[in-house]
């Protein structure tokens, strides 16, 4: 098969992308069908609750893809991607807040409830414009994007890498969490933003809107996945992998390492922002706990479990871990942290390539029978 010269089309010629997109669309169609056309009492019926839950998983999957892009292909272990996710979420939350209009508890046509409660007279300047959907949707990309641009510009220019970078990304999200907890910031303090009604004129509490959001999330995941795939298969992607494996050598070869890093980092932050924006209307709330360092580090474990530097592994990991979380916290909440902690340890020690690594090993073993699998494991 001839490899397309068009970088945007190239991913579609890859086997893994084809399979991934196929499975994703099949899942979307099946869930939609089961939700709409199965009778309520049927065992196969998918309830609106489940649809929203699945939508939430897909948001997490998109977030995991974003993290995998920087960790897997750029070698930057970001412990602060939750910050970009939450910023996207807040941008969306602000739009949804303004859509409430005078239906809030205090009935103020412009000010959200918490501002009336705090005796504020007018909207802070950074809330202006969020009543318009297009503006809010641009901010979903720009808010995390600009933060990533500034932060990345400073960090990559001065060649902060490895562990140091991880620690300061963690400091970043921690500082933002503390900041958003403050009422004076104008983002609702520790209650965050909630009590949403409409999105683009559709009532958020109807099943149809929920299904729509689920499908939108699925499409966003597909697009995000293709963008990431396109980046990593492009020439830029090659350089990015080179940065990951030997930063100094890449620099000596004449590449502007910090520019590559900055570009990939910003794209990843924007994808995380989109994931956050789709997450908020589905769960109905955004508060500063999304900024917590624990959440950011959890994302990394989804990627590690699924398999680093595969992208589809990140999706698998995110969905599996979060499904396990739903089950555990429902059945035995105390055991969840044990399970999660154990997962961290087991995956890093015994499964360094994650589930995707297992899949790849199997496929390789099938295709070339003469290579003993044992050797590969050590390779």
């Amino acid at each position, binding site marked *: 098969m001839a490899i397309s010269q068009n970088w945007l089309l190239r991913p579609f010629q890859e086997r893994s992308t084809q399979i991934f997109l196929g499975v994703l669309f099949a899942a979307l169609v099946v869930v939609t069908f089961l939700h709409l056309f199965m009778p309520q009492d049927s065992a196969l019926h998918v309830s609106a609750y489940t649809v929203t839950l699945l939508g939430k998983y897909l948001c997490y999957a998109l977030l995991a893809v974003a993290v995998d892009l920087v960790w897997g292909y750029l070698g930057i*272990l970001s412990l602060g991607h939750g910050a970009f996710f939450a910023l996207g979420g807040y941008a969306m939350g602000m739009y949804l807040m303004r859509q409430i209009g005078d239906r809030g508890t205090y009935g103020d046509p412009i000010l959200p409830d918490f501002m009336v409660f705090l005796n504020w007279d007018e909207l802070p300047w950074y809330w202006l414009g969020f009543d318009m959907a297009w503006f809010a949707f641009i901010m979903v990309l720009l808010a995390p994007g600009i933060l990533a641009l500034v*932060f990345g510009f*400073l*960090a990559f*220019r*001065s*060649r*902060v890498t*490895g*562990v*140091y970078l*991880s*620690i*300061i990304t*963690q*400091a*970043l999200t*921690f*500082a933002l969490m*503390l*900041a958003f*907890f*403050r009422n004076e910031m104008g983002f609702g303090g520790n209650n965050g933003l909630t009590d949403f009604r409409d999105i683009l004129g559709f009532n958020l509490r109807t099943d149809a809107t929920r299904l729509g959001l689920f499908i939108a999330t699925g499409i966003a995941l597909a697009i995000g996945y293709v963008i990431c795939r396109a980046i990593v298969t492009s020439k830029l992607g090659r350089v990015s992998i080179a940065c990951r494996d030997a930063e100094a050598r890449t620099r000596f070869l004449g590449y502007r390492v910090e520019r590559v890093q900055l570009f990939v980092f910003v794209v990843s932050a924007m994808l995380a922002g989109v994931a956050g924006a789709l997450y908020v209307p589905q769960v109905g709330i955004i508060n500063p706990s999304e900024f917590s*360092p624990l959440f950011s*580090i959890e994302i*990394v*474990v989804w990627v*590690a479990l699924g398999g680093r530097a595969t992208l589809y592994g990140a999706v698998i990991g995110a969905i599996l871990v979060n499904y396990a979380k739903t089950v555990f916290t429902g059945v035995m909440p*105390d055991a969840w*942290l*044990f399970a*999660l*902690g*154990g*997962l*961290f*340890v087991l*995956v*890093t*020690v015994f499964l*360094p390539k994650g589930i995707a690594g297992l899949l790849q090993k199997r496929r390789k073993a099938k295709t070339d029978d003469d290579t003993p699998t044992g050797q590969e494991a050590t390779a």
Partner: protein
Amino acid sequence: MGILRSLTLLLIALASVLSLPATAQDEDPGEQLLFNLAEAPASKVEEAINAIVSSGDERARGWIEAYGNNRLSRIKDTGQVVLVLNNRGRDWEIANPLTGENMGDMSRRELDRVAINNRIRGQLEGILAMLDLNAADPDVREASAQDMMGKVDASLVAPLEARLEQEGSARVRNRIEEALAIYRVGEGNLEAIDVLAGSLHPRARAALNEAVRGDNPALATKAKQALGTIEQKLKLNRAAETLYFGLSLGSVLVLAAIGLAITFGVMGVINMAHGELIMLGAYTTWGMQQLFPGQPGLALILSIPTGFMVAATAGIIIERSVIQYLKGRPLETLLATFGISLILQQLVRTVISPQNRTVVTPEWMSGSLVINDALSLTLNRLYVLAFALVVFATLMLIMRKTRLGLEVRAVTQNRNMARSMGIRATRVDIMTFALGSGVAGLAGVALSQLTNVGPNLGQNYIIDSFMVVVFGGVGNLWGTLIAGLSLGTINQLLEPWAGAVLAKIIVLVFIILFIQKRPKGLFPQKGRAAEG
């Protein structure tokens, strides 16, 4: 013969003094005093009280207090004066005011309250304070003199001046002088302002402020000057206090971070479970206090070695079971140890309790060291500060003067070279990790005296600890010390005008920016070791 006689007399006198409690039962002077008070008509009450006060009886305070609280009654039948311990309900619990012996319950109908009028009640406070001024303990005297500041009226001036004559303790004299000066400033006395200018007590300032507002212009000008002097001194004291709190916070940071500096610096291992090792140390203190109930001090001292051992053992287990398999993969170590930290947290929640545990502060660590009216240093923080410095010095000694320290430094600088010189790097790894973890345990023991001991204790410190290590420069203990102390101080300096949360945010942003400028911290490793 004469000598013998006088000796005998002396002996008899001594014996009679010593046997006073025995004789007191039949003929206690207090009985008469109380009887007089109870019998006195309204005009004679003051006289009766004065008699009690001037008797010098140690029980006088209790009696007068009881009298003021309507707790002095007489039994109608016998006329005996009794203390009412509990006057709720139909039967009142009473006690003998002379011996303190509990006399059980008695119907309130059989008791007759010793009457008091409001004029007397108003004076009682001053009388009680005067009584305390005569107490044997200088601390009690000082407290009571301090209590009198601003409450002195014309009737108290003479007794206070008399007291001032015989007072031996300089502290108490100062207080009495200040109390008198406040009264005199109120009366328009100019010299008294000089006395108040030397005082940092809020009531002295209140008196001066009143003088400024008053209609005596000479007094007002002088009072204003005095206030200016006081304000200057207060500023200095506030600065000293901020510095103290800053150093205290810094010492906590140093304690929390220094173990991390060792493991991070030497092994390049990001131990996210470090905070939980601190938590283990804190819980060890709690556990020891459960083992030795009623002896918090002993338990605390014993938990220093125990906390070290517990955390060090946990560290060895972590190193052997997980970290050794992740050599050369620092980011994976970060994830694995984070998993361990989650497990340890949940373990504590499940096994002990999700609630905070209370760790008792021993007697000798509570309270504060009073420097002056505006500045007092809490003792527990002082101890922790000292403890941090001792731990730091010990670690320095270990690193510089022992065989282990030598090997650790060698492995840090060049692992392969050290191994080829015959150093068993694996063993050094284990020892280093145990040492770093043990120090975390020590930090936990110290922290148990300052904050709540709960499952989240470690989480609250892990990010700060990393900041300190990274800020100070990895693998440099001096860097950690300076970074910890300065970050603590900066935080406290910012807090008054920015608030606690914003101060923390500013410090975090500062570190993020600082790392851009100097990616290897304040004191980067130099030479070839830095390239590793």
